């Protein structure tokens, strides 16, 4: 393997709170070695499918990086969240689903929608509050939906979707249609009471639902009380919580697309065979651009960064070198002779053009008429 891997010390900070609470996450006792200890894998898929995953990851990356300047220029207001750094989880995970499965997502939904095939131009239009938006401008960044892709409702309340996901799963079981539900949420969601209530229901009723917890706080500062995670949970590891409700749960490296693909495929298989809910915690190292209160882009992505990060500002360099799931995936593709550097650069050129056109479309999309505010209150 010729990929560069370094420890992410700069994203790792010790907090004495952990000692006061007598909680001893393993990561506190030893320096993080997560990113360097594992040989990343490619999903066991044909070349065309791998290139499709690569393209979807690039769509997400360039979508998000081009969103930040729109906010900074005042083209849209309100808070928003980037999916950068989690492409290696969402893209392979969502590729394991059937086209009629349900998905629920949170405030960090852009990547999930794009991974599933939502049109970038309509997602941009939604975030910009325009009439052509996915929700006609009624939802914005936090609430974008795409019912035809299985996204019925996206909640900005971190655990809001977890009980809802038991509901679509309950309906699918009653309707015997074989559909499963995937509930995508962050580690912070587990802090709300809705999460354990929903786990209990899902387990008791043996519902066909996959809880995919994307813990993007590996070594992150963020909301840390412990070095090992961004959330403030006494339950550690996080998988202890679903396990208490007898839901099979595993922790995986969310930066490893191959591992994610294998784990999700297996979990989905079990759910479809009636084994009830499954829980997967996919860990990623927080994108430096998401460490700040408002998103930033420390370094615009170019696939050439996979082999040379010397242009990246020093503060963010380690992340791009060893924790960026997109660059890891690209290095693996090339190392395994599944694609050439030129092929990948070609895909990226197409994606960049598509994103530029999507921005253009959204910026030129009209605002909804003010009276639209009173429409669609009731069905």
């Amino acid at each position, binding site marked *: 393997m010729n990929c560069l891997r370094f420890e992410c010390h700069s994203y790792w900070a010790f907090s004495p709170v952990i000692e006061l609470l007598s909680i001893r996450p393993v990561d506190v006792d030893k320096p993080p070695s997560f990113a360097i200890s594992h040989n990343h894998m490619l999903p066991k898929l044909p070349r065309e499918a791998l290139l499709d995953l690569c393209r979807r990851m690039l769509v997400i990356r360039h979508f998000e990086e081009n969103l930040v300047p729109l906010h900074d220029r005042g083209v849209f207001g309100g808070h928003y969240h980037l999916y950068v750094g989690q492409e290696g989880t969402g893209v392979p995970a969502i590729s394991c689903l059937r086209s009629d499965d*349900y998905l*629920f997502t949170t405030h960090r939904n852009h990547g999930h929608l794009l991974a599933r095939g939502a049109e970038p131009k309509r997602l941009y239009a939604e975030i910009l509050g325009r009439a052509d*938006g*996915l*929700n*006609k*401008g*009624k*939802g914005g960044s936090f*609430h974008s*939906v795409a*019912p035809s892709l299985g996204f*019925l*409702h996206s*909640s900005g*309340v971190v655990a*809001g979707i*977890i*009980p*809802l*996901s*038991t*509901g*679509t*799963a*309950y*309906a*699918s079981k*009653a*309707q015997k249609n074989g559909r499963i539900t995937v509930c995508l949420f962050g580690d912070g969601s587990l802090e709300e*009471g*809705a999460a354990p*209530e*929903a786990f*209990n*229901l899902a387990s*008791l*009723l043996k519902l066909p639902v996959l809880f995919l917890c994307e813990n993007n706080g590996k070594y992150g500062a963020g909301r840390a009380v412990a070095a090992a995670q961004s959330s403030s949970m006494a339950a550690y590891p996080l998988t202890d919580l679903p396990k208490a409700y007898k839901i099979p749960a595993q922790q995986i490296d969310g930066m490893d697309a191959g591992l994610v693909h294998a784990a999700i495929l297996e979990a989905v298989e079990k759910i479809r065979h009636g084994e009830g809910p499954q829980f997967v915690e996919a860990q990623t190292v927080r994108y430096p651009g998401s460490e700040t209160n408002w998103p930033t882009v420390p370094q615009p992505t170019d696939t050439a960064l996979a082999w040379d990060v010397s242009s990246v500002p020093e503060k963010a360099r380690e992340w791009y070198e060893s924790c960026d799931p997109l660059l890891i995936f690209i290095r693996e593709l090339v190392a395994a002779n599944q694609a050439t550097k030129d092929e990948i650069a070609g895909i990226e050129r197409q994606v960049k053009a598509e994103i530029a056109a999507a921005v253009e479309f959204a910026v030129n999309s009209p605002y909804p008429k003010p009276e639209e505010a009173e*429409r*669609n*209150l*009731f*069905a």
Partner: protein
Amino acid sequence: MRELAYYEAKFEALEEIMAADQRVHLINGTFLSLSPHRHVYQKLRSKYADRMISPPISELGFCGLATGAAMAGLRPIVDLSTGSFIYEAWPQVANEAANAFSMSGGQTKVPVVFHLFHGLRGGGAAQHSGSPQAMLWNCPGLEIAIPSSPRDVKGLLKTAVTSDNPTIFVDHTRLLDMRGEVPETDKPIPFGVADVKRPGGDVTLIATSYTVQVSLQAAAKLDKEGIDVEVVDPRTLVPFDLATIISSIEKTHRVVIADETHQSCGVAAEIAARIAESGFDKLKTRIRRVSTLDVPVPYSPPLEAYIGPSESRIIDAVRAAVA
């Protein structure tokens, strides 16, 4: 005409609903509270076990489950039992179910019914006597039905379950034993149509839920004093039939509103505001409210009786309106 007890009419509606639509699932409770009649619910359990669940005591969880199931095409009816328990489920009811259709730009329908028993029940104290319908009226996106008679509970429940919107079904345990006419041929009662429960010419007395029955008793007594009271029952708060109320006030020029929600920002407050905005010129005297006093509901019987919209308080308000 056929006469039924309120609980019988309600149960008949549930039986007909379950038989007519496979998509209806019943979640939690018995829809008859702890009344002695709750055993009739077993009849449904034996017939539709696969469409009924008794979840753990997780109002937030199972209201979310019902909301999600509604998004996926079922028509769940949730029994929260005691009205105050809906506060445990507030995020799912007020922040997810109520918002989903509008927030999705009119794409995601949520045909769920949240059923609850509100109000003063005798010894319920502060945590089991809540009337959350006023707070819920403040959440755009929810329909609110509030029956007061056997005929209405059957007709409104049947409409609630066919609605494509999240609906709060506000019931009252003190109604369960009352008897009234329920024609076998009755059709569902459309939302947004008020019912004049007693015609009269002197004062319009607007009341909801159990307070309609209290108001009818008050009207009978006032009749002996020569005061002819018209009792108007909105039957649904959302949608709200203001037209029927205004046309009654055009006749009487006087209005009293009696309701069990707390006075501040309560149901009576909102109705008073709408009348003031749309019918002020028709009034000969100020609007009077008879609401539950703004205190947590006390346990002791004389205290509980003192704070509610009792017959004597309603009579006093009507007398003042015609004085």
